[in-house]
């Protein structure tokens, strides 16, 4: 049997009651994406925290044998892996037919556009963010910060095409691309604080800055994106554990 802490989310008014579990940790952006998507669809879920460092939790290895990574969605005896796949599954499984609570846009070209930019985010952000967080060389840090800023710069432009003058990448409401990037905001803010570097610069990226404020204020998002201090606490604890462990 696996050992995990189950965390029940507060039942919402009009919520769909089904047995939905998310294997994950609340600070991981890819997990946050899934939680926001479930909230948007008013689906109750249980967040099951798992061990992602070796030895990994048995339930994680069993339900994601290919990658052994979080998030994993467990629903009706099936396990769904990869955040992009999970969010689209959530959109399609809990579709009310009228498209009113749709996460992806209705128009096929717009869907292709957001899929492209969501893939771009995963291609360009996580690697430099992680490298910058854990790296120590100053020169390399400047280069990595530059890569992150460049990626955010392109997303600032993409916001115009996707948002069509409205407040979110998804237009009037939070959508697929808002979730893909918004889930990373805590990560980015934490990095800015920890490394004293400007990434989401209000002067250079005014649209994204305004969008970020609106995104974090949304009902479906509130409380799901940790702030910089929460990440700092987590990293400090992780570093303390690493320095306490004798070298292999």
């Amino acid at each position, binding site marked *: 049997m696996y050992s995990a802490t189950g965390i029940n989310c507060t039942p919402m008014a009009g919520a769909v009651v089904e047995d939905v579990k998310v294997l994950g940790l609340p600070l991981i952006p890819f997990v946050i994406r899934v939680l926001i998507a479930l909230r948007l669809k008013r689906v109750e879920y249980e967040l099951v925290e798992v061990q992602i460092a070796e030895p990994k939790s048995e339930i994680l290895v069993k339900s994601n044998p290919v990658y052994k990574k979080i998030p994993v969605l467990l629903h009706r005896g099936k396990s769904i892996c990869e955040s992009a*796949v999970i969010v689209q599954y959530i959109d399609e499984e809990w579709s009310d037919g009228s498209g009113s609570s749709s996460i992806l846009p209705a128009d096929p070209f717009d869907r292709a556009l957001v899929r492209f930019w969501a893939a771009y985010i995963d291609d360009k952000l996580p690697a430099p963010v992680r490298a910058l967080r854990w790296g120590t060389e100053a020169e390399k840090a400047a280069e990595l910060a530059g890569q992150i800023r460049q990626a955010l710069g392109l997303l600032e432009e993409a916001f115009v095409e996707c948002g069509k003058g409205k407040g979110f990448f998804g237009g009037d409401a939070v959508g697929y691309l808002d979730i893909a990037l918004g889930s990373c905001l805590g990560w980015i803010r934490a990095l800015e604080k920890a490394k004293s570097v400007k990434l989401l610069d209000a002067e250079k990226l005014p649209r994204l800055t305004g969008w970020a404020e609106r995104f974090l204020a949304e009902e479906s998002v509130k409380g799901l994106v940790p702030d910089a201090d929460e990440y700092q606490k987590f990293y400090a604890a992780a570093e303390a554990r690493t320095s306490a462990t004798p070298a292999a």
Partner: protein
Amino acid sequence: MDPAGGFDLELLGSWADSHTHRVQLALKLKGLPFEYREEDSLRPSAAVLLHNPVYGSLPVLLHRGRALLHSVVILQYLDEAWPSGRLLLPSDPCDRAAVRFWSHFADDKLAPSVAAVFSSCPGDGRKAAVDQVHQNLKLLERELGGGGAFEGRRFFGGDEIGLLDVVLGCGSYWLAVFEEVMEVKLVDPEAFPRFHAWLRDFEEQREVKETIPPIDKLLEYATAVRQMMLGGTGADDDNVVAVN
């Protein structure tokens, strides 16, 4: 922008590029006429850079002048823009998730492992690269077997080929090519009977035969690239290999 030559659909691609083949095959399966323009995958033309400024890569599908990028995104677009014809994706959300997951696996894990065999040096490096391909094929073999997501099916799409068949199939021909050029065994029919049978059936499909270049042309191409790599030109040939 006016559609070229009266066609709504124009595909910019490269003859040896598996991602281009995916889109060509999908268009054929859906019965959609299109104009094809051959591009140099190494030296993107002005048109490619205009439509794909972020990556400058192929394929690019233009639909009434608007650019669609990334083969798997394009395939889903085709289903969504032409929903009344033959569909590439299944209708059930869980089945669709399985198709999307394994399509991601194809590009994230399988393709790079096959490319690594091609650029490997004889000895331990090659053996490790071949082992990695076997690990990945084992995962697919399992999915076609008992308890797998595609248990007992002739194709990943069921009785007919679907999106995942197109994604995996267009690229799997490199396995046979690299077996010959690199003198390794990748798809052993005894180790991977289901995968082997699936690939054979896939390549027998009429539309697939019309799309994938003859194997001797692919062999010639791969041999030339390999010789260039060994000649030490210093070029980054990992990108040349159309296992992308």
